[in-house]
């Protein structure tokens, strides 16, 4: 490794020397600064170690970060810009009734094991996600798939029971895996630009370039994801040069040490992570729209956001972040106004306020947010009892049993307004109009129609104050100054590594 690097360095020096002779008038400083080192291995620091390596076996968000687009590819890929582009699908056609999709696969694609990609692999991969024991959170969105046919090796025909306008988008979640792969929880067999080199549990995942990759080779010679459990340890690793880049900074206090230092670059992208004060809309008093609106108006969200994140982060007026196609600025539906909050409470019959328990996950930023909410609501006469619970308890007590009054939770996904169209979801929001709009948006004939319907649903949930949408987390990537070409938006936690380069030292 070191040896090849030295050789390359000599080559570069030679090249630089020649360039200087020919173009003596032009400064060589620029050439030196801009040179990227193609033999560099990029060390990425992250807080999200996957639990296993299979995204249908409950691997967690970390696996999307490490593997999506890097090790595995889908028929489509959700780009960092939010655009959905064909990846392993060379081309596709939708029938006029929208019920049949015909995909033509990229030619000459091979899996890391050497097997060629065929339509049978695609069929197998999609069926894996909708299988009975699949733990994929997107299983439900693919439930309209009625059958998959493979007329020849490069053609896949997907039949739907009803129209599904987001099928290409939903397919970005489906990894195409080799149907002969035996171990996908601790190994892999994908088609991506990198293959898995080693996974040291509790510590790191190393990826190396796959030599027979069908597309453009990565700009670096491999990546290592280094996993940390504490934000401080992760920051120290970047400060001391043990990692080159942090995928997502979660501790606001630590930003100052990077901002004021020319050795680091702080980039803010678009996030999809929403801090939500979710009420149990099934139970009194939260079944009352006026109470929910009163709470929304009683909390100074701007002050909350800036006290946690300073100048970073965005306020949102509903569950939809600006990167979703159906975003509308709804921050003025229930602006901060404690007086009108009190009035609304009186109208709802709670002039003297009430008491409720806020189930608060034990990790940042929820405990701080809970205290802020507590003090704000005290001003309008509502008493909040904070009950701290672990993430695991949250899932049993709140997500499954719906045994709560209100809770705090971060919702990370892109395009997840659909949760408000499901009356059985944990927050129990049930507005038949919204249910209808969200269901029918999926069967729209065009994207314009889909967007129109979801915009309307979006407005209604905001008017109903279905939940309290406190703020949108900032998505902050910090790297050392010599590193470039990384994604900044982190949609669905993805982190495409193949474009990252490091300047030669």
């Amino acid at each position, binding site marked *: 490794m070191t040896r090849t690097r030295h050789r390359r360095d000599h080559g570069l020096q030679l090249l630089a020397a020649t360039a200087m002779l020919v173009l003596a008038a032009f400064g060589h400083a620029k050439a030196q600064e801009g040179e990227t080192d193609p033999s560099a291995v990029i060390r990425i620091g992250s807080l999200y170690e996957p639990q296993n390596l299979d995204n249908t076996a409950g691997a967690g968000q970390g696996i999307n970060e490490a593997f999506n687009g890097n090790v595995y590819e889908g028929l489509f890929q959700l780009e960092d810009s939010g655009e959905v582009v064909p990846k392993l699908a060379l081309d596709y056609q939708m029938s006029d009734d929208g019920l049949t999709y015909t995909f033509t696969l990229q030619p000459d694609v091979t899996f890391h094991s050497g097997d060629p990609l065929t339509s049978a692999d695609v069929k197998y991969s999609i069926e894996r996600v909708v299988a009975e024991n699949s733990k994929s959170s997107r299983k439900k969105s693919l439930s309209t798939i009625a059958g998959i046919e493979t007329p020849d090796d490069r053609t896949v025909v997907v039949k739907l029971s009803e129209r599904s306008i987001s099928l290409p988008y939903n397919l970005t979640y489906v990894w195409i895996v080799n149907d002969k792969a035996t171990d996908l929880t*601790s190994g892999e067999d994908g088609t991506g630009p990198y293959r898995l080199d*080693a996974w040291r549990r*509790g510590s790191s995942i190393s990826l190396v370039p796959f030599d027979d990759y069908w597309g453009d080779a990565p700009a670096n010679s491999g990546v290592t994801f280094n996993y*940390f459990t504490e934000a401080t340890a992760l920051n120290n690793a970047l400060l*001391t040069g*043990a990692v080159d880049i942090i995928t997502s900074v979660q501790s606001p206090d630590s930003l100052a040490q990077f901002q004021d230092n020319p050795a680091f670059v702080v980039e803010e992208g678009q996030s999809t992570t929403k801090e939500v004060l979710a009420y149990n809309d099934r139970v009194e008093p939260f079944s009352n729209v006026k109470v929910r609106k009163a709470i929304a108006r009683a909390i100074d969200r701007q002050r909350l956001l800036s006290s946690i994140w300073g100048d970073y982060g965005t306020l949102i007026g509903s569950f939809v972040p600006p990167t979703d196609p159906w975003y509308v600025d709804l921050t003025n539906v229930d602006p901060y106004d404690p007086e009108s909050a009190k009035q609304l409470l009186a109208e709802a019959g709670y002039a003297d306020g009430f008491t409720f328990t806020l189930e608060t996950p034990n990790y940042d930023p929820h405990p701080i947010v809970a205290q802020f909410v507590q003090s704000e609501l005290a001003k309008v006469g509502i008493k909040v009892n904070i009950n701290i619970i672990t993430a695991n308890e949250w899932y049993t007590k709140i997500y499954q049993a719906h045994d709560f009054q209100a809770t705090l939770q971060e919702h990370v996904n892109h395009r997840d307004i659909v949760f408000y169209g499901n009356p059985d979801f944990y927050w129990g929001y049930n507005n038949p109009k919204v249910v209808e709009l969200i269901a029918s948006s999926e069967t729209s004939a065009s994207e314009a129609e889909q967007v129109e319907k979801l915009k309307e649903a979006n407005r209604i949930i905001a008017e109903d104050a279905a939940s309290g949408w406190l703020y949108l987390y900032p998505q902050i990537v910090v790297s050392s100054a010599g590193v470039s070409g990384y994604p900044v938006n982190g949609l669905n936690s993805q982190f495409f590594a193949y474009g990252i380069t490091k300047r030669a030292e």
Partner: protein
Amino acid sequence: MASVVLFVLLRLLPGDPANALVSVGADQAQIEAARREVGSDLPLPQQFAHFISSLARFDLGTSFVSRTPVLDDIIARLSVTVPLTLLSFLLAVVIAVPFGILSAVKADRWYGGAISVVSQLGIAIPVFWVGILLVTLFAVNLRLFPSGGFPPRGWGAPFEALRALFLPIITIALVMSASLLRYVRSATQDVLGSDYLRTARALGSGFSEALVRHGIRNGAVPVVSILGIELATTLLGAVVVERVFTLPGLGSMLLLAIEQRDYPNIQGVLFISTLLVLLIGFFADLAQRWIDPRLREKAGSVRR
């Protein structure tokens, strides 16, 4: 038995191991399938029977969450925890024994007193704080050692691995040597006040000669039993240090497993660490007998 207590305590924790597998957005059928898969939908007696029978076959099972055999994961992580524990322990002994003896022998000098004051301080300071201090000083400011992590190739890169373990080892050794030093000191004081030492001196041997010939062997017996206990404590205390330095050891495996309610992993780690602690105790006993012949005879003959 310990395993029964363990089983009951784990099941008393609220939460479900299946929760680590499914995420927000999963429907009821998916959750049920996950619970079936990990067996948390079975009645408790049945879960317990299954747990005991696999333990009897020495089968630690497969992790609910990562799907890897528990034993494999533990072995991989022992390659961090065992060197960490042993090296810090050795270093602690190397620090504690000479300084302990010195502080007892020269208790009347200023440095004798100073050593024991410093060691008191060492006992009062929590280990994670020492770790954080060392990271700030040697990693962040001086850039001499990495602030945490372990090389992906592990001991395949021995130099890097040692470098990664350097600060954690110093951290544990500093804290541990403080308490060890006090035992060495008091054992030495006992020896200093003993009749046999006075007799040896009376027979004409010099002070250091008497101390080395008679003192060390006698003083070592209580110290060795403490060493055994301390070594076991270090093994368990590695949990905290591994967390501070992000080391992929047994401790971090245990913490993660508890968070996820990954019962096979928790049970596996606790089983293996209990085993190690028992083994350490056993070897400490053996060492004592080897040092002190009187203990051997006592064990061999019937007591009156």
